[in-house]
C-alpha cells in the first residue's frame, strides 16, 4: 500500500482508537461509581483493543518511511519536533498496553474491588492516546510523508 494511504489509514484508525479508548474509560468510571455497564464493558473489551492494535500496526508500517523521508529533515531543522515524535511513540506504546489490559480485564472481571483500579488504568490509557494523537497531528502538519 502507498505510504500516504497508510498515513491516512493510521490517522483514521488513530481517531477510532482514541474514541474507543475514551468510551471504554467512561464506561469503566461509570461502573466504578456503582452503575455496572456490563454489556458495554464486554463490547469494548474487543472494540478498544482491536482499534488500538490496528492503529499501532499501521503506525509501525509507516515508521520506516518517516525515518527515511522526514526524520532526517527534522534532525537538521526542527530537532524539537523529532523529539516530540519520539515522545508520541513512547506514549502510544504505553497506551497500547494500558488500553488492552484495562479493556480485557474490564470486560470479564466483575468483582467490585477491581472497578476503580480498572477505571484508573483506562483513564490513563485514554489520556496517553489523546496526547499521542495531538502530537501526531502536529508532527504531520509540520511535515507529512
Amino acid at each position: 500500500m502507498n505510504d500516504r494511504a497508510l498515513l491516512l489509514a493510521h490517522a483514521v484508525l488513530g481517531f477510532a482508537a482514541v474514541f474507543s479508548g475514551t468510551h471504554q474509560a467512561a464506561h469503566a468510571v461509570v461502573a466504578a461509581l456503582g452503575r455496572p455497564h456490563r454489556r458495554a464493558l464486554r463490547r469494548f473489551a474487543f472494540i478498544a483493543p482491536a482499534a488500538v492494535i490496528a492503529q499501532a500496526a499501521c503506525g509501525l508500517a509507516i515508521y520506516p518511511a518517516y525515518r527515511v523521508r522526514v526524520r532526517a529533515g527534522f534532525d537538521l531543522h526542527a530537532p524539537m519536533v523529532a523529539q516530540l515524535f519520539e515522545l508520541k511513540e513512547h506514549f502510544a506504546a504505553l497506551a497500547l498496553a494500558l488500553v488492552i489490559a484495562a479493556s480485557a480485564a474490564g470486560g470479564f472481571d466483575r468483582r467490585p474491588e477491581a472497578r476503580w483500579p480498572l477505571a484508573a488504568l483506562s483513564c490513563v490509557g485514554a489520556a496517553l492516546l489523546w496526547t499521542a494523537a495531538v502530537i501526531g497531528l502536529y508532527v504531520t502538519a509540520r511535515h507529512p510523508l
Partner: protein
Amino acid sequence: MTRAALAGVSVFALGYVLAEPLHLPVLLYDPWTGGVTLSSAVATRSMRYFGDLLLATLAGLAAAGLVHRLPARMPIAVAATASLSLVALDVLYYLSRLLGAS
C-alpha cells in the same frame, strides 16, 4: 484477570523503559536497507523501537500469564498503584528526555 492485566502492564512499563538504558539486545531494523539484526546498539541509524516494543510486549504477556496461574497475594489496589506508578515513571522519564533535548 485484573491482577494478570496489572502485572502485564507493570512488566511492560518496566521492560519498555529499561531496554534501551540497559542496552538489552533487541531486534534492530535498518529502514534504509530493510535489514534486521539482533543487537544491543543504541546509537546507530537503525531503529530500536520495534525491538523494544516486542521485548516489552513479550515480557508483559509472560508476566500476565504467570500471575494468572499463581494464587492472589497482593490487594488489587496495591497492584494498581504499583502499575500506575511505573507508567508514571516512564512518562516522566520520556518527558525529561524531551525537555533535556530542548
